C-alpha cells in the first residue's frame, strides 16, 4: 500500500470513528467504551498472523502470548459489553408512571 493511500484510509477512518459516535448519550458512555474495546480486539487477527509466520522459538513464544492476549481482549470485551447492553431493554411503556 502506498503511503498516501494509507493516509487517506487513516484520515477517513478517523472521521468515521469520530462522527459515528458523536451523538452518544451519557448513559451509553461506559457500554460504548467497552464496545470499542471489543472492536480493537481485531488485534487478534494481527496476532494470529504474527504467530502464523513465527519461525524461531522466541518468535513463537511472543506470538503465542500475542494470540492469547488478543483472544482474551476480543472474547472478554464481547461478553462484558453484551452484559452491559443487555440491560438496556426497550421500554415496556408503563404509561402510568411516566
Amino acid at each position, binding site marked *: 500500500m502506498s503511503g498516501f493511500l494509507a493516509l487517506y*484510509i487513516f484520515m477517513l477512518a478517523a472521521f468515521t470513528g*469520530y462522527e459515528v459516535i458523536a451523538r452518544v448519550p451519557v448513559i451509553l*458512555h461506559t457500554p460504548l467504551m467497552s464496545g470499542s474495546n471489543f472492536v*480493537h480486539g481485531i488485534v487478534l487477527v494481527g496476532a494470529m498472523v*504474527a504467530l502464523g509466520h513465527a519461525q*524461531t522459538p522466541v518468535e513463537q513464544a511472543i506470538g503465542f502470548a500475542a494470540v492469547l492476549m488478543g483472544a482474551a481482549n476480543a472474547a472478554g470485551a*464481547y461478553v462484558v459489553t*453484551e*452484559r452491559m447492553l443487555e440491560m438496556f431493554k426497550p421500554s415496556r411503556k*408503563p404509561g402510568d408512571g411516566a
Partner: protein
Amino acid sequence: MSDWISILINASYLLAALLFILGLKRMSSPRTARGGVVWAGLGMLLATVATFFLPGMHNFALIGLALVLGGAVAWVTGRRVAMTSMPQMVAIYNGLGGGAAAAIGAVELWRFAGPPQGASQLSNAALVAVSTIALAVLGSLIGAVSFSGSMIAFAKLQGWIDRRFVFSGQRLINGLLFLLLVAAGVLLVWGQLSPQLVIAFFILALLLGVMMTLPIGGADMPVVISLYNALTGLAVAVDGFVLQNEAMIVAGTVVGAAGTLLTQLMARAMNRSLGNVLFGNFGGGGATSEQEIGGAQKPIDAADAAVMMAYAERVVIVPGYGLAVAQAQHKVWEFAQLLIQRGVKVRFAIHPVAGRMPGHMNVLLAEAGVPYDLIADMDDINPEFPNTDVALVIGANDVVNPVAKTDPSSPIYGMPILDVGAAKNIIVIKRGRGTGFAGIENALFYADNTRMLFGDGQQAVGALVTEVKMVDG
C-alpha cells in the same frame, strides 16, 4: 493459494470492517445498542476465521491453543464478574489488547533484529523499509504503555492499589523516562536494531505506562481507561500498517478516533479537562474544604417517609454512589413499582456523574429492570423539581450539593447539579454523616424541608417497601 480464496479473505476483512463501524454506530443509540455488539461480534468472527486461510500460515496448533485458552478464560471471567466491577474488566481486557499489539510489534522487531535468514548476506533489518521499522516501534510503544497503564488502572479499581502514588519530581522523572524511550526508539529505527535494545525499549515502555498511571486517583480511572482504549486502537492501526492488514487499520483507527472523542465527552461530563485528569491534583484524595453549616439534620423514620410518598402525586428518585455500594437498585425498583401501582408518578433523575463511572446509575437501574422512559437526565428533570412533592435521594451527595452553585472556593464549584432543593419535601437515605467523593459538607441535608433516613441503602429502602405495603393495611 488460489485467487478466489484470497478474494474471499479480503472480502471477509472488508465486511468485518463494515460491521464494526455499523456496530459502533448502533451502540451509540439506546434503542439499537444491544444489536450493535452482535454486529461487531459477527465481524470479529468472520475476520478470525478468514485469517486461518491466509497464505503461508504455520503453527496452527499453537494458534488454536492460544485462541481457545485466552478466549475461554476471558469469556468465563467476563460472564461471572459482578456488574459493579465492569470498569475494571474493561481496563483489563483493554490492557490485554494493548499487550497483544505490543507483542505483534515485538515479533516483528525481533525478526528484524535477528540473524539473516535464508541465503541473504544482509541483516534482516536492511531488507525492510525504515518506515516499517518505525511503525513497528511506534505500535510497540503505544501498545506497551496501554498494557501496563491499563493494568495499574485495573489494580486501582479493584482496590489493590488504593492510594495515589505521588512524590516530588515525579513529572521530571516521567519526562526523562519519555525522552529515554524516544532515544531508544530512534536508535532502533536508524540502524541499531539489536535484541538487547529491543528488550530495553519494551521495559522502558512498560515502565512509562506504570509511572503515568500511578499518580492518578481511582475515581478518575474511567476517563483514563477510555484514553488507554483509544491508544490501544491506535496501536492496532499502526500494527495494521506494518502487517498491511486493512481490517486492522480501519478498525484500529475508528476506535482510536471514537475513543479520543469518548474520552473528551467523559471528562466533560465530569466537568474536568483531560489535562486536569492526567496531571491534576483533585480526584481520589478527597480535598477537604470543610465549612460550617447552620442548622441540624432532621431524621425521619421509614414509616413516616413511606406514608409521605404513598400519598404524594409526584416522586423523583435520585440515586447516587451509595446506591451502587449498597446494591439497592432492585429494592428501589420494587419500591417505585409499589408507588406506581398506587398512582404516584415516579421518575428517576440521573446526574451525568452520579456514581463512579459515566452511566453507572443507568446501568444499575437498567439491571434492576427500570424502563428507560422513567429515567430522566439532569436537563429534563431540573425544571420539574418545583412540581415534585417528594425527592428521594438515595446515597447521592455531591450531585445534589447546592454549594456547586454558591461557593466559588468549593472543589465542585461550577458543576451543574440536580436541583433537588426546589422540591417540596426531600428525603435523604445515607448511612451517617459521611461525605461524598469530593469530601465536602452538603447544606441540603440541613435544609428545612429535608429529612434524613439514616441507614444502609439496601436496608432503608427495604424498610420503605415494607411500610408502603402496610399503608393500606
